[in-house]
């Protein structure tokens, strides 16, 4: 069985490597400050440390007041999984650091989030719309999108 690492456990492990890298945590996930996500992902990927070599999925949810970007990670060697979340404020130009240089898996998924949810990923090598066409007005998965 895949061992599900709780948010509290993973935040303790991250805290050992970098102080103040986790805002708060609960059973389900650990919340990371927006500007620290790249640093935290590097810590999580480290093959000699936590060894989360596999980025299962990146999702984004629109909670009206803020956007939440959710990282589902897995370690294939240890058969563990954990969830990291980032809150992203502002509806005009929300942006977050790209992790596509850490996991190649983030490449297309971040483009999809930019396309459908309108969250910009800084330092992404090719941040273009992916499912919709260039010039499409708006980001359809946002709750205030009118089709």
């Amino acid at each position, binding site marked *: 069985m895949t061992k599900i690492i709780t948010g509290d456990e993973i935040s303790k492990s991250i805290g050992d490597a970098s102080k103040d890298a986790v805002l708060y945590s609960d059973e389900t996930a650990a919340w990371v400050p927006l500007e620290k996500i790249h640093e935290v992902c590097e810590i999580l990927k480290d093959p000699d440390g936590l060894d989360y070599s596999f980025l*299962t999925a990146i*999702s984004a949810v629109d909670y009206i007041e803020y956007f939440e970007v959710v990282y589902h990670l897995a370690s294939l060697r240890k058969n563990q999984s954990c969830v990291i979340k980032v809150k992203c404020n502002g509806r005009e130009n929300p942006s977050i650091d790209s992790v596509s240089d850490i996991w*190649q*898996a983030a*490449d297309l998924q971040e483009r*999809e989030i930019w396309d459908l949810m309108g969250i910009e990923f800084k330092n992404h090598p090719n941040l273009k719309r*992916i499912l919709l066409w260039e010039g499409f007005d708006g980001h359809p998965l946002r709750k205030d999108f009118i089709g």
Partner: protein
Amino acid sequence: MSTIRTEPVTINLGPQHPSTHGVFRLRVTFDGEEIIDVEPVFGYLHRGTEKLAESRNYVQIVTLTDRMDYVASMSNNLAYVRTVEKLAGIDVPERAQYIRVISVELQRIASHLMATGFLLNDLGALATPLVYCFRERERILDLFEMLCGARITLSYMRPGGVFQDAPDDFWNSLNTLISDFPNYLDELESLITTNEIVLARTIGVGLLSDTQAVDSGVTGPVLRAASVKWDLRKANPYEVYDRVKFDVPIGNSGDTYDRYYVRLQEMRESIKIISQCIEQIEPGPVRTETPYFIRPPVGETYSSVEGPKGELGFYMVSDGGISPYRCKVRAPSFINLTPLKDMLTGWKMGDLIIILGSIDIVLGEVDR
């Protein structure tokens, strides 16, 4: 003597091209015959499934999942209903779990047959091997028709179980299929596995290393062909997979041939799983009573199954209402295209077609 270089030429492959298996466009830049850059262009079949799900109730969404990976609807149904069950805390009767495993393994065989047949088609063996594969796939679709009346867009599963119990005829036909199938696979293998043309065209072509496979998030036969033994049915057993014995076949080099051969061996393993399920299944109810409007408590969950193409997951957020607040699909076909550029660079046009074919994408799932 200096090498003669030519001007790079960019051409469009698709969106209407028989070997893209749907509407998919690749902008390929060639230097002479060699591929130097690839840019996939998606979205021709985008229907906004995730947005549609936000305005439907939990039972209605089952029909949307059918239309994602339309050659493996059962697996989509299972991934979805499992997520709803986890979110709402619904139990599933044991008999339903067995029927679910039997039907998704049949679906895996049907999907792999399709992948193998079309791979051969892409290799230039036009239609004949494909018909061999489709002949057997047809028998599986007949079984699905007995289960739920549909052949492709099945919607057989419901949160809490399956739509109805399998009829008596189903078990006889299933037994016949199970006993015929190993011989059929031997026949198919005798056509392909040691075929000189197939070997020349596929061995060492489109390599994907194990480290890159993990890094780029690919799953399913593509990951296992790159010698990474990772199968959610073993790593995180769901339904009744912990009660059946089966192996996880892996390749050794991650080339096109390995991807074909892993799929072929997986079909044999699926047959093993199904025959064990037939022995173990016992009479009983097949569906827990659930209200038509399911209202899961406020919360969120991620749950995934090993589909024929790879890890098919749903991330669902509930606000306590009758439809999900957010329903995100982790589509394996989509994510398996991440390393496409690295796999194709340096190869020629003819290889492009079979490398793309060996990844086995379904555009309904890529574009959603």
